[in-house]
């Protein structure tokens, strides 16, 4: 029989309570976003450890990484991880705040293999450095492109794309 979707159905409140209990002190600001997403935050130093624990959780294992987005918040830069739990058929959005002058965070490619390209995209577009990534190259833009266009202070100059 195949991989089942929603084999362990739980209410959103129950999942939020479960996460609050198991990740006490690690996951901050756990909020339910209707109808089926949980939004939460964590510190960049703990990301790798938390990612591993989220994936291996026996009741609500967030096994699949859906996407990663980098967002420039002017004051800081945020890396958002959107993961899917097959067991409970719900999503979780993990927000990690990074300092603007030095946006570095550990890679999660070891936990979720799909993170490879998504992290490359976030590096390419917003300039987040994923430490320990196996192959952190530009993905959508050319290799010799200068700058990260989805930063709010990016100014498009001809010098930025030499071979356009």
């Amino acid at each position, binding site marked *: 029989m195949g*991989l089942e*979707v929603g084999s362990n159905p739980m209410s959103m409140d129950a999942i939020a309570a479960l996460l609050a209990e198991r990740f006490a002190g690690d996951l901050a600001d756990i909020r339910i976003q209707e109808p089926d997403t949980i939004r939460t935050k964590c510190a960049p130093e703990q990301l790798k450890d938390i990612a591993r624990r989220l994936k291996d959780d026996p009741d609500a294992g967030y096994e699949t990484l*859906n996407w990663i987005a980098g967002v420039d918040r002017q004051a800081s830069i945020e890396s958002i991880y959107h993961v899917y739990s*097959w067991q409970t058929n719900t999503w979780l959005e993990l927000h990690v705040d990074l300092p603007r002058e030095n946006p570095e965070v550990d890679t999660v490619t070891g936990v*979720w293999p799909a993170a490879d390209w998504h992290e490359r995209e976030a590096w390419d577009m917003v300039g987040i450095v994923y430490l320990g990534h196996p192959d952190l190259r530009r993905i959508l833009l*050319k290799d010799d492109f200068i700058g990260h266009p*989805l930063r709010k202070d990016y100014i498009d100059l001809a010098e930025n794309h030499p071979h356009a």
Partner: protein
Amino acid sequence: MPDEFVTPEPDEAVKLALRRIDEATARGEGSDADGLAFNEVVVNMGPQHPSTHGVLRLVVTLDGELVKDVIPVIGYLHRCKEKLAERRTYFQYIPIVDRTEYVASMNCEWAYVMTVEKLAGIQPTRRAEFIRVITGELSRMASHLVAVGTFTADLAPLGTAMVFYMFRDREYILDLLEELSGARMMFNYFRFGGVRYDLPDGWTSKCRDLMKRMPKLIDEYESLVDDNAIFLQRTQGKGVITQQDVVDFGITGPNARASAVALDLRRSRPYSVYPELDFEVCTAEHGDIFDRYRVRMDELRESIRIVEQCLDMLPKGPVQAGALRAPYVITPPPGSCYVGQENPRGEYGTYIESDGSRYPYRLKYRDPCFCNLQLFPKLLSGNKIADAVAISGSIDLVLGGIDR
């Protein structure tokens, strides 16, 4: 010698392929069991190769006919769609969404409009919801016809017979959508709270006629390939996607369902009026090329069922919530939201962050093909190069969505 004849420097992807060969040799993996050194060649496939269906470039490391390593290179169709969103109002941005995954534009618009509606708290009218399902499913059929048609053309046993039949029949669907929206492919049809136009006079009967004819046409396609010995030999047991791959790489859509994973957002996180409709989630067991083809053909039949049900259930009423026409300027309250939608290729969604102004603060696409393409190195390695072409055709990539 003039400059243009000088061989350019290899770019990063080719350098990476060469470096991987050197590393393998240094590890002592440069020869086979008998001690014969591999004679590896790095071949650049694309970005204008006919079998990649777009501007996909694959840097393939070959040992004879055997694929040892694949490095996909994308970005040749990058049009800064996420950056464009920062300087367009929500309304102005609708036609741009069409151009991401241009084979199933209706579904892409739907995903974007649903996200904005959720952010702004707009509820579309019931008639509009049914029209959306009809257009979305027609778009899905048109998209699957392109997918299967071009894929069988890659396989050679039929030549281009199938692709011509399928493109002919896809044109019937596009005619319907053109009559509805005014455009053949770039529809610009969805609006916040509804759709742009109501169904024209006589449209439903034309649509019903086509839905009556379609099953026969699908039977005809299947009779062409299902018993074809060459087709079966080239597709069965090749390019298997395991369930672990589905979990690890976030594979969605028909590619996941062919591996016996009943993941269909229309069922698992129902949106619009799908909960009221009766349809099957089509799955297959082996996850090989043939099963992916099979799932798409089954889904064609299910889409016909859905469209027929919607035509029967179509309520009367306005197609736009609130005013007579859609609001030109909307300002969703600050916040963010992600909505995934079942596109013909898998989960297509947009993540939008609003800062309360007329423009999206950040818009991010989750594209199914981007995630499916990531599996390529694993999926193609160890196959013959001719099979690699068949496998990549069966994954059904649209580069417009990948590159954005």
